[in-house]
């Protein structure tokens, strides 16, 4: 089995992971990473197969580098992401229903109006504006609509992004500079997030209240409810912000893309999924083998941590034609940017609706979208993100 002396959490790799992903794919279907005594899967077919096979590749030992069987996690494990059947079943069912397309229908009009208001405020009466699209659009819109949809109180929402950022950093090595830097304020952020998961701190209507109502119906236990709310707050903010950042960057950086989308606004949903394929806000998660598991001709030994690279799979030329192109005429269906199988992102419909609302509002007014400077990466052990995305919006 090939081995690569590669550190997936090295700042240079995080800044530009594409060469590392290509090296992993080219090395073989299963690659050993001796630096962390783990394995890696990066080709599309093998990533998809591993993600689907929850029976062999478990999540309850943690989807980060930390092995919960031998080490203590920094917080109580997620009842969704870090759980296997049968414990995973009920929380997943409850959340899938609350965040499902049918349930979101009632939010559609409000979010469309919110997006129009945000874009109108940003543009004012001007014919063009130059903005950093990360704070003004990619972060602003989810922070405007999602905490309200959950039913969070108005004060303290500034904890959400740093909490999520740290949670995703913490899937990497615990002594990594990004994790160490985040540890400093974590008690504060996690404390606030934990408080918001309690029934008395949630609005009487919203995703949070819906989760508690599921506990009242007996579909969850009351002990599980706050942890399921926590999953929303951990996984539902940063990921969407970075997904929207990715699609805005892609549309600004790809010649002709904005014009095509203006001509065919029905492609907004394709645009977002293509961006999730192309940029994969969640780059990779670990799984842990419960037995010796074959991957192509090689075998992962039992009890091993395996880094499953969503991002590398999404640009595997063995599966995608011209994978490095952001292409609105492509059908991105089957990308693994939201994962695959029983752990596939349960909030993906929420993310899609947020992106669709914002893009639709932008398309209605903005005729040109251009980069005005070099975008700056935000480094995170799991997420691919922008710190800064300087854009000119022409009305």
């Amino acid at each position: 089995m090939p081995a690569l002396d590669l550190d997936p959490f090295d700042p240079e790799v995080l800044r530009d992971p594409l060469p590392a992903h290509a090296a992993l794919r080219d090395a073989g279907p299963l690659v050993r990473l001796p630096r962390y005594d783990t394995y890696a899967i990066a080709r599309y077919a093998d990533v998809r197969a591993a993600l689907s096979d929850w029976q062999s590749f478990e999540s309850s030992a943690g989807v980060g580098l930390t092995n919960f069987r031998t080490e203590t996690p920094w917080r109580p494990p997620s009842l969704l992401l870090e759980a296997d059947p049968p414990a995973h079943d009920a929380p997943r069912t409850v959340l899938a229903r609350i965040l499902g397309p049918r349930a979101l229908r009632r939010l559609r009009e409000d979010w469309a109006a919110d997006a129009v208001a945000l874009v109108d405020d940003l543009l004012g009466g001007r014919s063009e504006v130059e903005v950093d699209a990360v704070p003004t659009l990619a972060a602003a819109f989810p922070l405007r609509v999602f905490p309200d949809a959950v039913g969070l109180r108005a004060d303290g929402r500034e904890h959400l992004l740093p909490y999520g950022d740290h949670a995703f950093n913490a899937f990497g090595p615990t002594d990594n500079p990004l994790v160490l830097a985040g540890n400093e304020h974590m008690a504060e952020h996690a404390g606030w997030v934990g408080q918001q998961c309690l029934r008395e701190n949630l609005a009487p209507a919203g995703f949070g209240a819906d989760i508690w109502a599921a506990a009242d119906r007996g579909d969850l236990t009351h002990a599980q409810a706050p942890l399921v709310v926590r999953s929303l707050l951990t996984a539902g903010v940063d990921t969407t912000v970075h997904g929207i950042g990715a699609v805005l960057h892609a549309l600004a950086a790809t010649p002709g893309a904005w014009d095509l989308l203006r001509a065919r606004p029905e492609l907004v949903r394709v645009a977002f999924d293509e961006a999730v394929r192309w940029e994969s806000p969640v780059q990779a998660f670990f799984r842990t083998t419960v037995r010796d598991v074959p991957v192509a001709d090689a075998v992962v030994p039992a009890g091993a941590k395996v880094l499953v690279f969503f991002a590398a799979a999404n640009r595997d030329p063995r599966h995608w034609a011209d994978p490095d192109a952001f292409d609105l005429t492509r059908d991105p269906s089957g990308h693994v940017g939201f994962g695959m199988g029983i752990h596939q992102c349960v909030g993906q419909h929420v993310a899609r609706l947020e992106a669709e609302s914002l893009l639709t509002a932008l398309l209605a007014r903005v005729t040109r979208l251009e980069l005005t400077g070099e975008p700056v990466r935000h480094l995170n052990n799991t997420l691919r993100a922008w710190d800064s995305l300087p854009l000119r919006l022409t009305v």
Partner: protein
Amino acid sequence: MTPTAAAPRQATLRVTARETVADGVVALTLADPAGARLPDWTPGSHVDLVLPTGLTRQYSLCGDRWDASTYRVAVLREPIGRGGSAWVHDELAVGDLVGVGGPRNQFRLVPAPRYLFIAGGIGITPLLPMIDAVRRLGADWRLVYGGRTRDSMAFLDELAVHGDRVTVLPQDEHGHLPLAELFAGVDADTRVYCCGPAPLLDAVAGLDLPPRVLRTERFAAQEQGAPARDTPFTVVLDRTGVEVVVTPDVSVLEAVRSVGVDVLSSCREGTCGTCETTVLAGEPDHRDSVLDEAERAAGDCLFVCVSRSRGDRLVLDL
């Protein structure tokens, strides 16, 4: 990309094993002909067997979820059935291909510290994977399993490993299940999962239990009271704006089909859930056996094969 009620998957699977597991009960093992992984399922799920006779029948999955390459179902020969079970018993052989829809779950296991499982006859099937699940979760559980005779009761050997958690009470030895006695110790933290013939479910439903304790599944349609209205109502198909009047003698499904909109359906008696349709406005008159009370109260979906409208207008996402 517009979300709709999940269309049931349909696959063609091969019968890879067939075994008589009790008098009148045959267990089938189904697998993808190419050996592919089958769709995931959860305890309480059923699949549709799409029979060449045109009938579709629901059977609970009663195998091992950790085996992703096979499904197992058990089929009781129903002497007064409509021919589905007889066809399975008399015609379906190892090596044959059969259409399989689903899996779907309308009998979900919810988390609880204690469970009481009550099976009547073939009703044991959905409870087998539930028992496996609660055992893995470390919850406390008991099973009381009734049937006509010991020989008619499937899977007794599989259940024997659980020792005195399982009580087997064949009717010819013990009479009817002593329900009042069984439920004496049931508190609000216990979840009772009961599956079996309609008289058993009706008897259980008639007991005075704490709210939300009881979960049942019936594969036969529930007895319904009279419809909420016996006058026509209008169904509006939101995506096209087409309106159609539903008269008392036709179902919403038939009315919708009559204006050229096709909705997948299967059982036509409100038990399988295939024809689930989103309600955008109006007040449904639920006539199905699928939704629980909370889901009925939500009023956001309708099984168009049997359910109707309480008001003059019902707007559907079609």
